[in-house]
C-alpha cells in the first residue's frame, strides 16, 4: 500500500493506521463513540493482506488480556475503547506496566461518570495520566487533535512503547473520533518478521528454542526485589520525561493571555484566538501533545510573560492541576469546561476568558 490521501473519520483513520503501521493484532469490544475502529478493521480484512489478527472479544476485560498475551510475545498489539470500557481494563493495564510490555491502548473519551453519555468528554485525563489502575506506573499519553494525528500517533505510540517497554495510550475524545477530515495515510510499514521480533524483543515468548526460557510475570514476593523493580520502572519514566515531551505552542511569545487546551478543545481555542485578535486581544495557545510526560517546563517558561491563563477542558478541571504545578502560583490560572457531553463554542470560551481572567484582574 502506498501513501494515500483520504477523507475519513478519526476512528477510521485509527484503524487504517493500525494496519499501515504494521500491527500484529487488534482486540476490541464495541462501544460508542469508537465502534468504527473494529468495524473498519473487520471490513478491511487485514488478515488477508498483512496477516494482522483481528478479534472481537467478549468484553474489555478479555480484550486487554488478549493484548497482554500478544504483548508478551513481542507483537505490536492494540485495543481501543471508550471510557467505561477503559475503566474495565485498568487491572490489565497495570499488569502490562508491571511486566514492562509495549502495547497501545486507545481511549476515545465519552462523558461520565457511570454509563454517562455517548457524547464527547475529556474527563478521563486523571485516569490516563495519574494511573487509573493500581500501583506506581505511568502511560505515555498522546492527545491527538486532528484526524491526521489519530493516524500519525499510532505509529509514534508504538515506536515509543517499544523503545521504553512502556504502555502507550492515545487519549482522544469523541469529537476527534467522529469528525471527518483529510488525512494522509502512510505507506504500508511491513509487519516485523519472527526473526526481527526475536532480535528486538529478546524477552518475548517465542518458544524456548536455543535459548533459556522467557517468563513474563508481574509477581515478585521478595520485597527488596520488588522495590528494585519499581525503581527500574521509575528510572524509565524519568528517561521518558526527559526525552519525550511534545507540545504545540501558538503565538505564545507575543500574547497577553494564554489558553491551555488539548485534543478537540485546542482546535476550538484556535478559533478563539482568531476572534480575539479581531478585537485587538492577543492570545497564545499551548497544546500539550503528550499529557504524560506533561510539558511543565514549556508552560512555565511561556507563562512568564502572560497576564493570566485559562485552561479549557471538557471536564470539571483536571489538566488545570498540572498547569498550576507548572506555573508554581506565579500566574493566575482559571478553568473553563463544559460537562456531560456539551462542547463549548468559541464565543463562550472568549467570554469566559474575559469574565474569569481578564476582568478579574482589573
Amino acid at each position, binding site marked *: 500500500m502506498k501513501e494515500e490521501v483520504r477523507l475519513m473519520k478519526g476512528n477510521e483513520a485509527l484503524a487504517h493506521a493500525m494496519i499501515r503501521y504494521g500491527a500484529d493484532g487488534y482486540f476490541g469490544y464495541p462501544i460508542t463513540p469508537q465502534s468504527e475502529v473494529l468495524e473498519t478493521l473487520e471490513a478491511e480484512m487485514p488478515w488477508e493482506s498483512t496477516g494482522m489478527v483481528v478479534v472481537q472479544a467478549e468484553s474489555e476485560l478479555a480484550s486487554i*488480556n488478549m493484548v497482554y498475551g500478544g504483548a508478551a510475545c513481542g507483537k505490536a498489539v492494540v485495543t481501543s475503547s471508550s471510557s467505561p470500557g477503559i475503566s474495565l481494563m485498568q487491572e490489565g493495564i497495570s499488569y502490562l506496566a508491571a511486566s514492562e510490555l509495549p502495547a497501545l491502548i486507545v481511549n476515545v473519551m465519552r462523558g461520565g461518570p457511570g454509563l454517562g453519555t455517548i457524547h464527547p468528554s475529556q474527563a478521563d485525563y486523571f485516569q490516563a495520566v495519574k494511573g487509573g489502575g493500581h500501583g506506581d506506573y505511568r502511560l505515555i499519553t498522546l492527545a491527538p487533535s486532528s484526524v491526521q494525528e489519530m493516524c500519525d500517533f499510532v505509529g509514534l505510540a508504538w515506536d515509543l512503547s517499544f523503545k521504553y517497554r512502556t504502555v502507550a495510550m492515545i487519549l482522544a475524545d469523541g469529537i476527534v473520533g467522529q469528525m471527518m477530515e483529510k488525512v494522509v495515510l502512510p505507506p504500508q510499514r511491513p509487519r516485523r518478521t519472527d526473526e526481527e521480533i526475536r532480535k528486538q524483543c529478546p524477552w518475548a515468548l517465542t518458544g524456548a528454542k536455543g535459548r533459556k526460557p522467557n517468563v513474563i510475570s508481574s509477581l515478585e514476593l521478595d520485597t527488596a526485589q520488588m522495590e528494585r523493580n519499581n525503581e527500574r520502572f521509575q528510572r524509565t519514566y524519568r528517561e521518558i520525561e526527559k526525552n519525550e515531551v511534545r507540545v504545540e505552542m501558538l503565538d505564545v511569545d507575543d500574547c497577553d493571555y494564554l489558553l491551555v487546551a488539548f485534543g478537540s478543545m485546542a482546535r476550538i481555542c484556535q478559533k478563539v484566538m482568531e476572534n480575539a485578535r479581531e478585537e485587538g486581544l492577543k492570545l497564545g495557545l499551548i497544546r500539550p501533545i503528550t499529557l504524560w510526560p506533561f510539558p511543565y517546563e514549556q508552560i512555565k517558561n511561556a507563562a512568564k510573560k502572560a497576564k493570566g491563563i485559562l485552561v479549557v477542558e471538557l471536564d470539571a478541571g483536571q489538566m488545570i492541576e498540572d498547569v498550576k504545578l507548572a506555573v508554581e502560583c506565579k500566574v493566575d490560572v482559571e478553568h473553563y469546561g463544559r460537562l456531560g457531553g456539551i462542547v463549548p463554542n468559541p464565543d463562550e470560551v472568549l467570554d469566559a476568558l474575559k469574565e474569569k481572567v481578564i476582568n478579574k484582574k482589573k
Partner: protein
Amino acid sequence: MEINDIIKPENCVYKKPTLLNDTNMHYCPGCSHGVVHKLIAEILEEKGWGDKAIGVSPVGCAVFAYKYVDIDWVEAAHGRAPALATAIKRLQPDKLVFTYQGDGDLAAIGTGETIHAANRGENIAIIFINNAIYGMTGGQMAPTTLLGMKTATTPYGRRVDLNGYPLAISELVAHLDGSCYVTRQSVHTPAAVRKAKAAIIHAFENSMAGKGTSLVEIVSTCNAGWKMTPAQANDWMVEHMFKKYPIGDLKNE
C-alpha cells in the same frame, strides 16, 4: 548389595524430566498440583514440544508454575488466562499454547473467558485443577465446593440457599461447539496418573493440530485446605468429589 551398587545408569527405570527443574516446589505435600506439573514437563520432553510450548499460569496456588517447568510462560491476571492464550495462539499458530488454572480462576472470576475462548474454538489446551477450594488464599469456598463442605467462608458447610450449587463447568464447556475434547481425570493412583497423562497428551495434540479447545479437568486434592492428611484427602475425594465430578471423557471429537 550396597545402595551404591544399585544406583547406576543401567538400572534406571524412571527419572525426573529435565524440563522439571530442581527449584523447591512451594506446594504442600499431598497436593495434586505437583503431580500435574511433572506430567506436563514429562509430556513436553517426551514429545519434543519444550521449545514450542507457551504456558499461561493463573492466579492461584499454581501462580509460580513458571518457576518449575522450563518453558516460556506468562503469568496472567486472575481468571484471564484463556484471553491471553487466545492472542498467543492466534499470533503464533505454530506454538503449543496451554493454560493451567484452578477452579476459582477458571470457574468463578474467569468463567467468561473460559466459556468464550472455548466457544470460539481457540486452539488451546486448558488444564483445570479442580480442588473444590481456593487453595492460595487460605481455603475459601470455590464455585466447585461441594454442598455441606466446610471452608473458611462456609464454616458450617456450603448451603444451597446461601451459596448456590457446585458448578460442573466441564459439562458446560462440553456443550459448546468450539470445544473438541473435554475430559475429567485425577492423579490419586498410578493408574489414574497414567490416564491423566494420556489425556493431557491428547489435549496438546489437539492444540498443535488446530482442532479446537481442549479442557482436561483434574479432580484434585487440597489436603491443607480440606484440613486432612494426604491419604485422607485421597479417600475423601474418591468418596465425595467423584460423585459430583465423575471421571471420564465428556467429549472427544
